[in-house]
């Protein structure tokens, strides 16, 4: 095509989204908000995987779509992570009556 999107645009988008996710993880107290921020970071990683698959050369031993398979696996792991994460948050909420990560301080001396 005459005006393709450059590779580094996707990479910069992913880097920015990852940094925003990091901001969320560092600044939010609520555990569910932290989970949301982690989802943003995982999505940024997925964008990178697909972009490199599309722009990079293929290695015959890795098949035609290695980036996509990895992206699907990230999808799976992200969903499982949210499922278990919210289960843990519910447990902690019942025990500590709070969903703030700061209040889970039983282990702190």
């Amino acid at each position: 095509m005459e005006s393709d999107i450059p590779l580094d645009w996707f990479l910069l988008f992913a880097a920015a989204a990852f940094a925003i996710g990091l901001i969320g993880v560092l600044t939010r107290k609520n555990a569910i908000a932290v989970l949301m921020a982690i989802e943003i970071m995982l999505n940024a990683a997925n964008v990178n995987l697909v972009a490199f698959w599309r722009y990079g050369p293929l290695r015959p031993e890795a098949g035609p779509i290695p980036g996509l398979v990895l992206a699907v696996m990230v999808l799976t792991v992200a969903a499982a992570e949210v499922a278990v994460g919210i289960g843990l948050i519910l447990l902690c909420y019942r025990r500590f009556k709070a969903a703030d990560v700061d209040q889970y301080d039983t282990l702190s001396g």
Partner: protein
Amino acid sequence: MLRNLFLVISTLGLACALATVLSRNLVRAGLWLVAFFFCVACLFVLLEAEFLAALQVLVYIGAVSILLMFGIMLTRGVQGTDPTSNPSARLAPGLVAGGVLFLLLSYGISRERGLRTQRSWATTGERPAIEPGTEGPSTPRRDAINNMGKALGVELMSRYVIAFELAGLLLTAALVGAIAVAHREEAFEPSSKGAPASSPAAESASVA
């Protein structure tokens, strides 16, 4: 035209991500997150991974966001506000950390070269062609892009079969673990004396 489309979508996506992170209301944060997922799906379409874009919408918007919303409803007041969150104290260091990370990553992106092609990422302006009629080494890629679901199935069943079965195992482990963790309502019921139990609306809780 494609470049403009990309710029619009990515700007919207980053704005949504920022709104997710900064929004005090958790349900609204979840809504911004949904918008961000949708923007990422649009980027997948621009990368010609339309099957993955459909999966992105199906899994993230259709399932994960619902789970997040349910999680909010089960742990917060229904309006989802986050009164204890006091972002101002941590916002500055968080923003600095995020900004530094972004600068580091963009510096790396501007300097790094492809492993095999030795081409700089920053100058990789065009993707390997898949237009019909193009011969050469990109043929398997063309087949994969034109029939992505099928290619993904073949790969999962042959080359990545271990990963596929492990994914099944992971899902079952997640299911069993989450149920084992979450399903202990009776054990903690007597000690629950927060606002909800004593409020008159507790009657409607039995309706729920």
